[in-house]
């Protein structure tokens, strides 16, 4: 009898804890929930699909490397088709699911959500690099690991002025003529227009009439003819790659004697493929290294692209993947810091995470990241590239902060 009692006691001692541990195994490995909004079917799917793949790859890398101090990230990734109402609905779902941060996409939805995420104290790391999101006193929870559109635009027009206009036979004789080509109705396209025109004025350009080119345009002849009538020397392209390549092709075909500068979402590996010869000499902003370039951490990007998406050939992968990794790596670092400080909340991720960054190097050709409690612009220098023989070459690292320190500090933040 005694033996039986002992046996049952021993069994209970072994089995009950085992059952408890077994059942609660999932709970023990508590995850950190993060939402991601992507466009793989809408008006920016030409660049959004690759970005979405990059987000998923990068989160796998984070989880393979310990997650957030041992806690894996559970990613909820949705396609919202670039529809703002859908983005708002999905954001509410992220909140209900208990997400601590969101990896967002477009400017329209990011700007529309900005007051809500500020109220909710939800860090929102977007692929929209609108300068409107950099003034921390106004939009404290908006962040991204890239130079903003206005910085890119100012840098691009400055680089063209420095490297091309100064060598032009008319330099010093007349003002260079400049026009902007973009989809007026889309916040992404219009976000840096005020800034680039301000920079044009600063450098002494004559600014012509804006040209409305749809994000889904495959023909821009009438707009190109208007640029020709004005006698443009330089055109800013503010759309995404497909539409930019259509405009550049038409400009080439119609003999427009202007150079082209392009915002980062219109400047990728597909531009020379789609525009061919017309892309030669086109300058643009790239916020990180191109896919496969030899820079720190790129080996991981390529390895994970191969490992987790073997169905997508590497030659189809773009700089968009790298941009996605940059945002994920920045968020990862911020979450690790917040967690270490015992405060893995939205406010903790911002204040004990992002806003403690002082020149954090995430590699990938991204400038070292600095965020302060007042300024979420990551850096004052922006690299401008040009396409030569179908390849991207660095033209100039434009130091806006160094050249116009007062304007950088006092005037240019937030627009």
């Amino acid at each position, binding site marked *: 009898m005694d033996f039986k009692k002992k046996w049952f006691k021993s069994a209970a001692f072994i089995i009950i804890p085992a059952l408890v541990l077994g059942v609660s195994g999932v709970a023990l490995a508590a995850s950190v929930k993060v939402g991601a909004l992507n466009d793989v*079917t809408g008006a920016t799917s030409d660049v959004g699909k690759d970005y979405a793949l990059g987000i998923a790859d990068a989160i796998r890398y984070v989880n393979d490397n310990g997650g957030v101090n041992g806690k894996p990230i559970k990613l909820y990734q949705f396609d919202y088709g670039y529809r703002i109402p859908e983005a708002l609905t999905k954001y509410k779902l992220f909140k209900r699911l208990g997400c601590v941060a969101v990896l967002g996409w477009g400017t329209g939805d990011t700007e529309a959500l900005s007051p809500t995420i500020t109220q909710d104290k939800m860090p929102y790391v977007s692929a929209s690099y609108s300068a409107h999101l950099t003034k921390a006193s106004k939009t404290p929870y908006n962040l991204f690991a890239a130079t903003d559109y206005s910085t890119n635009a100012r840098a691009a027009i400055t680089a063209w002025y420095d490297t091309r206009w100064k060598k032009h036979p008319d330099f010093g004789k007349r003002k260079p003529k400049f026009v902007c080509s973009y989809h007026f109705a889309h916040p992404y396209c219009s976000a840096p227009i005020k800034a680039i025109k301000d920079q044009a004025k600063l450098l002494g350009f004559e600014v012509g009439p804006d040209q409305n080119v749809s994000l889904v345009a495959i023909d821009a002849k009438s707009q190109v003819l208007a640029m020709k009538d004005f006698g443009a020397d330089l055109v800013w392209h503010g759309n995404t790659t*497909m539409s930019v390549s259509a405009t550049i092709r038409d400009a080439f075909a119609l003999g427009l004697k202007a150079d082209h500068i392009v915002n980062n979402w219109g400047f990728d590996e597909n531009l020379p493929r789609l525009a061919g010869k017309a892309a030669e000499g086109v300058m643009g902003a790239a916020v990180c290294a191109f896919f496969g370039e030899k820079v720190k951490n790129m080996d991981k990007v390529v390895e994970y692209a191969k490992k987790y998406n073997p169905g997508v050939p590497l030659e189809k992968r773009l700089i968009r993947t790298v941009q996605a990794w940059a945002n994920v790596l920045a968020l990862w670092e911020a979450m690790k810091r917040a967690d270490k400080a015992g405060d893995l909340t939205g406010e903790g991720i911002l204040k004990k995470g992002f806003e403690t960054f002082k020149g954090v190097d995430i590699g990938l050709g991204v400038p070292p990241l600095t965020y302060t409690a007042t300024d979420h612009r990551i850096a004052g220098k922006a690299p401008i590239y040009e396409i030569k023989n179908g390849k991207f070459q660095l033209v100039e690292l434009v130091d806006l902060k160094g050249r116009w320190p007062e304007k950088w500090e006092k005037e240019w933040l937030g627009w």
Partner: protein
Amino acid sequence: MHKKSMLFACITVLAVVAFMAGCAGMTAKPTEKNFKAPTVTLSHVEVQTYWGWWFFSKKIKPAKGKPGNYGAPLDLAFIFEIKNPNDFPVLMEKLQFTVGFEEYDINTVGSTEAMWIPAGKTNEIRIHSILDARQTQLSLLVTGGFKLKKAGKSFWDMLEKWWTQIPDFSFPVHVRDGSALFKADGLVKAVSFNAKFP
């Protein structure tokens, strides 16, 4: 009494040994060497729900709600067979692919819900691709605009053809750039797949 206890203990030990041996016999230990890639095969595609073909531009005032560019939805279901050729269960963590109508990429869909596939068995999974004519128009233009232009085709003609002919599948529906991710005891295997229906 002592004999009874001894017998009880022996039976217990034998039962535990038999149980453990049974478990061990059921599943082999996954290794890099013996982890065979599961296969993903498209069984068929269904039009899950059909609303016909229509498009209203934002110039049209609706009876209720706000004006907008609204196109007919289309709900396609892709049914895949996932075969696990291994002697141990595998966990499928992700399945993703691009939907193509003829040579044009239309949508990218997938599932990130985890699914266990028993040793040597085949599971089925149904993945929906819900499209609407407006979204498809945008996607088609930004990803296949030049192809359409070169072929001298109008995107409206293509959309109408696809939306009206899909119940009969009179044009091929493609599964492109597909990849699925499988795990077994910490080992990872990603497989790629492509398919065409019919």
